[in-house]
């Protein structure tokens, strides 16, 4: 029997009205949640017609739709979609963001997984696709997709984050966009495929093979170097995403999954792995995906994703409908392992209290967290702060900028601040 919520539980655990996370476990607490500032249907000027008899709406009396071979979301959820940021000259070059503000739990539906393409989604015929492993190996090998499907597979719930995600955080002015269109170049899926170590063992690694160059089959043959140690440790040649074959825009028929490492290394449409004694120094590990620091020199091969978290609700563009107890909820992840703790603040980081982590808490996977917040109607600044199992604590923006300057572009992982004004409107602020 769960303990019952009482007014004693409204004693704040930190400034600005944050409550202890235990209240979330109690019965009887009714939480308000932030709403979209402009609900999609209301924006279209349509108010849903109220049924004259809510106890017996038409769908309880008339036969429903027939079976479908492949189900789609309800038409009432049509506004939940990726926002596309492609260059108008080149529709296939750009990104699309996962609408983090509209999703719950930790898994991203395949159709909402973020995209980053350099030259569009290739229309690959799986029968004509090959994976070639060559270079410093005893026996160069060529695999068909069909043959790879016969290998023993493994499965991981893994986030993939673009190294350029959240890069607007380096701007001097806080960008005003929904959280997904600012931080949504990160998604989390169950990836299933063949451990790369099996295939590399079959080819037979030369001891001099310290690096591998992975190449995709898109119309720029995107190539990038990865240490062999990582490939042998936990990389997979993924064939399935969330139980079904990988979607074309996510690498069909196969992609590399490098758990916890920046997105570009998770090469989509994987077609070739060359084992080498040194990196190839491709464009996407020199000109791009390197971080220019205040010294004028640049860090390269910054593979692992630092711990990060953000509140998805309330978040930029949403609004609160008056003083009440609100649920704060968000996502945390780290390329170094599990999330150990998430703390939240409602007073701009002056004080913090722990959020409740929702099971499962898995390494290199999204972790959902929740907290309760009694909003008194005064302006507030909401934040979340992740700590991973290595003890890395997500830095405040000022600390990150002091360390790295503002021109690194990649790997922005600072604490995200949402300002709530007296009307309940939520905007992005720096605090």
């Amino acid at each position, binding site marked *: 029997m769960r303990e019952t919520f009482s007014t004693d539980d409204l004693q704040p655990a930190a400034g600005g009205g944050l409550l202890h996370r235990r209240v979330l476990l109690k019965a009887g607490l009714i939480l308000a949640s932030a709403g979209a500032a402009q609900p999609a249907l209301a924006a279209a000027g349509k108010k849903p017609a109220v049924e004259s008899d809510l106890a017996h709406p038409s769908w309880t009396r008339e036969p429903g739709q027939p079976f479908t071979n492949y189900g789609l979301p309800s038409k009432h959820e049509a506004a939940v979609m990726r926002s596309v*940021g492609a260059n108008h000259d080149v529709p296939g070059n750009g990104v699309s963001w996962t609408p983090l503000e509209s999703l719950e739990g930790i898994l991203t539906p395949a159709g909402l997984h973020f995209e980053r393409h350099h030259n569009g989604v290739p229309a690959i015929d799986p029968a004509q696709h090959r994976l070639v492993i060559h270079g410093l190996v005893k026996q160069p090998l060529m695999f068909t997709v069909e043959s790879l499907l016969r290998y023993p597979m493994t499965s991981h719930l893994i986030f993939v984050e673009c190294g350029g995600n959240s890069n607007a955080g380096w701007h001097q002015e*806080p960008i005003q966009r*929904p959280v997904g269109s600012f931080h949504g170049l990160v998604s989390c899926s169950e990836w299933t495929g063949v451990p790369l170590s099996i295939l590399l063992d*079959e080819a037979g690694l030369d001891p001099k093979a310290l690096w591998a160059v992975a190449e995709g089959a898109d119309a720029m043959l995107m190539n990038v170097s990865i240490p062999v140690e990582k490939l042998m440790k936990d990389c997979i040649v993924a064939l399935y995403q969330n139980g079904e074959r990988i979607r074309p825009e996510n690498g069909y028929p196969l992609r590399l999954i490098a758990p916890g490492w920046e997105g570009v290394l998770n090469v989509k449409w994987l077609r070739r792995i060359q084992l080498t004694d040194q990196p190839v120094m491709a464009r996407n590990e020199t000109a791009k995906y390197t971080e220019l620091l205040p010294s004028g020199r640049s*860090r390269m091969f910054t*593979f692992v994703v630092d711990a990060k978290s953000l509140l998805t609700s309330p978040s930029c563009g949403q609004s609160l409908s008056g003083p009440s107890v609100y649920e704060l909820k968000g996502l945390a992840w780290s390329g170094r392992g599990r999330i150990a703790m998430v703390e939240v603040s409602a007073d701009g980081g002056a004080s913090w209290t722990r959020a409740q982590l929702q099971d499962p808490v898995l390494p290199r996977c999204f972790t959902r967290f929740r907290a309760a917040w009694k909003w008194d109607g005064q302006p507030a600044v909401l934040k979340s*702060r992740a700590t991973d199992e290595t003890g890395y*604590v997500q*830095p405040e923006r000022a600390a990150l900028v002091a360390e790295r300057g503002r021109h690194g572009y990649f790997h922005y992982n600072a604490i995200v601040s949402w300002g709530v004004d007296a009307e309940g409107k939520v905007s992005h602020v720096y605090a």
Partner: protein
Amino acid sequence: MSKSAKAVCTLIAAISILAGPATAGKLGLGQSATPVEIAAWDIDIRPDGQGLPKGNGTAAQGEEIFQTRCAMCHGEFGEGKDKWPVLAGGAGTLKEDRPDKTIGSYWPYASTIMDYVRHAMPFGNAQSLTNDDLYAVTAYLLQLNDIIKDPNFALNEKTFLSVKLPNEGGFYEDDRDTSEKQFWRKDACMKDCKKSVEVTGHASVVDVTPDGKSGPKVD
């Protein structure tokens, strides 16, 4: 042995026959790839010259190719049109407030130009340049960046390694574990962390849905 136990045994035998090579520890479903086959796939070019194809080109030849096949996006002098990448200029800007990261100012190796052009350019018609064209276009890009001065310098697999880019020494491997050690901490503040909270930078424009025009630069 009961009938059903026999059936199970038979089934196990059938499975092990089907699985075949698995009992030897290897499935071995990859086909051997011959050097001729691999040569058609492997177009990587490394800083030490591995992968350089046979060919020859000059900046003067490259300029002609560049103007007809590249300048519509990158501009006549590599200055970049609209959101397309700037390829030249920016020398000495890396410590400035608006660093200009071009081939000449930022890229570490000339091989990166050739490797990338060979994989990806011209955009929309990738892998269509001959090896001579590749050397010529690379030479022209190097000339635009004042790295090759003589427009008739013959760039080929023998002379390539003599070309060095100014920022080659400007990179180092990930050192976050030590340089950012302050982010690993056991003393993260829980209360009275700040005397006052200064909220800065309220931006006024709420740009809810990014459109094509506000999209990222073309990378």
